[in-house]
């Protein structure tokens, strides 16, 4: 099995050009996301979804203009993959999380399961879509299209361990330069999704970028859920029995 591969997106050097969005679409043949002027700075694609697998957020605040290219996090504990009933979503030899479009039947369960709001169902197609970390390219030894195109190398692709080391250095450097607000997001293996395969260097709180501050893989609580449900099922059985036994 290959090494775990991932993305480190350093938003402190993102220039918001959106090459990642376009390169992704060209390679993966993703349809356009509609032509809507949103009046939200320079962001007119809004959010990640079935038709936008890389999304550049623009945040204007107090003399700064933050830009950040968001993408599927390829979680260690991926809720979408856990809940997928068909096995369309699976974990690859690169430890990335990919939807097999030839398997997906569009049940839609992965959509609300994702704590980051990444995966979505393309309604005119019926299936769920998201970033594959260019699985086909990886199998040919190529880097993902977005990382390759990125003019400033804000999007870095590589073995996750190397990326984590590089990210730690980068944060240290920024802190030394007085950019104390720099922080990593998602890289910790101890977080609620067991660490993400695509992680970020942010310059503000995650929610400013539309990211959840402390996401949890919903299936963490699955045993508890089944226990409560089991209780309820037994209660149902008991209730029915009681109704009959009372009468007879």
């Amino acid at each position, binding site marked *: 099995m290959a090494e775990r591969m991932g993305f480190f997106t350093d938003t402190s050097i993102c220039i918001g050009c959106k090459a990642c969005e376009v390169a992704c679409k060209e390679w993966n043949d993703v349809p356009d996301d509609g032509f809507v002027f949103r009046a939200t700075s320079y962001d007119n694609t809004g959010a990640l979804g079935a038709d936008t697998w890389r999304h550049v957020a623009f945040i204007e605040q107090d003399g700064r203009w933050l830009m950040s290219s968001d993408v599927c996090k390829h979680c260690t504990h991926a809720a979408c993959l856990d809940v997928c009933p068909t096995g369309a979503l699976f974990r690859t030899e690169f430890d990335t999380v990919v939807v*097999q479009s030839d398997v997906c039947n569009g049940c839609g369960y992965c959509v609300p399961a994702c704590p980051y709001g990444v995966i979505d169902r393309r309604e005119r197609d019926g299936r769920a879509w998201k970033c594959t970390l260019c699985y086909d390219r990886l199998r*040919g030894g190529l880097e993902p299209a977005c990382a390759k*195109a990125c003019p400033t190398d804000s999007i870095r692709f590589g073995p996750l361990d190397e990326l984590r080391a590089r990210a730690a250095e980068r944060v240290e450097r920024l802190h030394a330069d007085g950019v104390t607000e720099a922080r990593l997001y998602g890289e910790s293996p101890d977080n609620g999704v067991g660490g993400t395969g695509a992680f970020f260097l942010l310059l503000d709180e995650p929610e400013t970028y539309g990211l959840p501050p402390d996401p949890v893989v919903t299936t963490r609580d699955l045993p508890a859920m089944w226990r409560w449900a089991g209780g309820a099922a037994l209660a149902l059985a008991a209730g029915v029995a009681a109704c009959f036994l009372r009468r007879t």
Partner: protein
Amino acid sequence: MAGGRISRWPLLRQLRGEDGRRDAARSSRTDALRPRVERADTVARSVCPFCAVGCGQLVYVENGRVTQIEGDPDSPISRGRLCPKGSASKQLVTHPGRATKVLYRRPYGTDWEPLDLETAMDMIADRVVRTRRETWQQTFDGKEVRRTLGIAHLGGATLDNEENYLIKKLYTALGAIQVENQARV
């Protein structure tokens, strides 16, 4: 083979010990997945047609169709990277809105008409020759000028040097001096 297909049923593979979230879930299409650029018949080394940075592009062609355009990592200018416009180059050359047929609008016409390319070329040549003769200036203000102000040209700046060269050469020989391009704009 039906037997093979049944034995590939992920549930059975699960029972054989494969991980239901990993290998057991894989389809045969997934197993066969490769980057499509590997199937390309030819790869042309090109240059991005948008701005003047001059980023290197690799153009992959398979069965007579462009299947991918991406950055050329060998380029000392761009190191394989492209901006959003450069990244949209495949769409630029393959999108359905591209015009591929000659169109003709006759004077006072209200709609386009189809026209054969050869005929169009002859008609244009006729008009150049006629207008040039009709508007020829041998002298101006007492000075010999040998020119026509009746024919003008405006070119974009995405034309090749070789094209610009023939354009300037032909017009200058014809005496057409109002030859301009985007650099003035």
